[in-house]
């Protein structure tokens, strides 16, 4: 038998029908929905006089557009409230499980799925959100879709998809002290550029990836879309199985034994072919920060912004426009640049491990008075665990306040907006113009680098501080 990649194995097992000269009818095991990209899909379904085909395979949670303070009160913003209410009504009408606001399982859709055991190896999983690639950390084929495709899944549990090409990114060796999964992913994206993996599905491999925790692997897979990839995945191993076992919706008893036997087969066969391969050394990676307005514009904390001679001349106008927006100059160093806001949260870095890293770093220190810090847990479960582990207490002593769960300042749909012209060191996934609020200037970084900025009030090297 021809050797197959991990991606081939999961993809091929879900093709209902291959259409000649076209995409495949592709079966979806798990569908996650939220309030922003689903209402038009439900109304489309309704216009056809249809109900949801397999309501038990869809899970809903509002996250993008909810306040992160006073969640027990009615949502003030009328349009936001209507969106959340519409999600509730659509779920009730169609018998879809909803983890609504104030539900103990509410949270960011990509934090909730894994922590409850909904996300499992070998699955296909989609959501109307590009960071659905997060779930690939479990060896699932998971990717973001548009609202028309959300409607297709609701109507038929399938979408039409051409099979992407395959890429493997191998990172071998050991990450330096103070270098995290976030730095690893920002490094890879800086190498490939923001469109460098467009058209591909990525498998991350190598000893540095294997050594990551599940949270770290989720951070890496989460950011796959930021280099244009359809998704990213990591072969499941003991780390994966230990994480999944015992979670509420994970298989139990005999089902667990059976599932485990199947999951252990989910790896790329020796000799399987990829359309593209890249290999990097973990030891080359520094704590990373972005300096521009797409996630590919990243450098090591000790480095400098490229100068004109380092940039493709045809792209120089866009490059300069980006630096103008950021208020940075060609060749500038980031170290020592003023930081006004620090945001720790999002589906990239809003998990318990991220809060543990933050708390351990700031313990016994004080936040700089000039910095406004927003710490936003990824879910109610993360919030609860952070309280139980004493992390919130440590954070409060250091001058930080934890808000309530949600997507928050990652995309600034709610009131959590960074003011125009202000600098934010953010653990989220996008530094696009206006992403964190109109005029906001975002530098993406790890929770540890964010902690360093919060303590010193300027861009700092976490390796020298903690």
């Amino acid at each position, binding site marked *: 038998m021809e050797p197959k990649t991990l991606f081939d194995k999961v993809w091929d097992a879900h093709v*209902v*029908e291959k*259409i000649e*000269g*076209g*995409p495949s*009818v592709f*079966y979806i095991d798990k569908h996650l929905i939220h309030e*922003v*990209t689903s*209402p*038009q899909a439900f*109304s*489309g379904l309704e216009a*056809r006089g249809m109900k949801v085909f397999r309501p038990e395979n869809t899970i809903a949670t509002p996250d*993008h*557009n909810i306040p992160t303070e006073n969640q027990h009160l009615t949502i003030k913003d009328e349009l*936001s409230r*209507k*969106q959340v209410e519409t999600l509730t009504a659509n779920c009730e009408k169609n018998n879809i499980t909803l983890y609504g606001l104030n539900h103990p399982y509410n949270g960011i859709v990509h934090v909730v799925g894994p922590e409850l055991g909904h996300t499992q190896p070998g699955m296909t999983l989609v959501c*109307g*959100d*590009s960071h659905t690639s997060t779930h690939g950390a479990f060896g699932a084929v998971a990717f*973001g*879709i*548009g*609202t*028309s*495709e959300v*409607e*297709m899944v609701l*109507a*038929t*549990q*399938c*979408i*039409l998809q*051409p099979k992407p090409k395959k890429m493997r990114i191998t990172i071998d060796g050991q990450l330096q002290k103070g270098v995290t999964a976030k730095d690893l992913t920002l490094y890879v994206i800086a190498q490939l550029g*923001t*469109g460098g993996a*467009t*058209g591909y599905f990525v498998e991350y491999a190598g000893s540095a990836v294997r050594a990551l925790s599940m949270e770290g692997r989720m951070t890496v897979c989460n950011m796959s*879309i930021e280099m*244009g990839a*359809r998704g990213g995945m990591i072969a499941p191993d003991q780390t994966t199985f230990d994480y999944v076992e015992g979670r509420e919706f994970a298989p139990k008893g005999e089902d667990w034994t059976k599932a485990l036997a199947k999951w252990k087969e989910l790896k790329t066969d020796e000799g399987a072919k990829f359309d593209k391969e890249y290999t990097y050394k973990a030891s080359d990676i520094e704590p990373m920060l972005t300096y521009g307005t*797409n996630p590919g514009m990243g450098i090591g904390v000790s480095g400098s912004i490229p100068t004109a001679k380092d940039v493709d001349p*045809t*792209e120089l*106008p*866009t490059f300069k426009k980006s630096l103008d927006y950021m208020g940075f100059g060609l060749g500038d160093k980031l170290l020592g640049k003023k930081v006004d806001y620090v945001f720790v949260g999002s589906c990239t870095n809003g998990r318990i491990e991220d809060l543990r890293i933050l708390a351990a770093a700031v313990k016994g220190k004080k936040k700089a008075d000039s910095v406004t810090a927003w710490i936003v847990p990824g879910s109610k479960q993360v919030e609860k665990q952070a309280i139980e582990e004493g992390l919130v207490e440590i954070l409060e002593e250091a001058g930080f306040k934890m808000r309530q769960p949600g997507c928050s300042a990652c*995309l*600034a*749909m709610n009131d959590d907006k960074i003011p*125009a012209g202000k600098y934010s060191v953010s653990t989220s996934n*996008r530094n*696009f*113009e*206006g*992403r964190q609020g*109109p005029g906001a200037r975002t530098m993406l970084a790890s929770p540890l680098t964010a902690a360093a900025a919060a303590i010193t009030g300027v861009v700092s090297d976490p390796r020298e501080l903690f």
Partner: protein
Amino acid sequence: MPIDKFTTLESTYVPLPVENVDTDQIIPARFLKATSREGFGENLFRDWRYTSDGKENPDFVLNKSEYSGEILVGGKNFGSGSSREHAAWAIHDYGFKVVVSSFFADIFQNNALNNGVLPVMVSPEFLAKIFDAVEKNKEQKIVVDLEKQSISLNGESESFAINPYKKNCLLNGFDDIDFLLARKEKIEAFEANN
């Protein structure tokens, strides 16, 4: 949702020679609060089109009356970032039927096709010619022929790729859901076997 049929289009065009135009620029998140598909065109390129006090930014191409047409031409890697279909809705709602670039992000490309907006990928050289031509003549037109899969500028043509299934959908105004619904039995059989 049934999509508009597309066969050929001859139109003047709007140049946006910026690389990596992400969907947050096409429509910022704070304008995604609607529960219907209509009206997003108003906020297309909101933060480039309007200043922070809500006035039209005279330097932005959509506010320059000399540029118009049903074709938007963008720089490399158009539509990157968020999967929000609202970006395709905003482009469609504003009145564009074709987006030309030398490279498209995957999800945006799917979303555009699902809404009857045709993404046309051309070579970087051809893209440069398109940008140059409109600076010389604002009345310059492009012809896009879906059946022939060709795009022409001043008598010079390039062919573009499109999945044959999607081409058929656009030519006939078919949508994917009808196609999938016709396969319900196969889907149920797949479920029974897995």
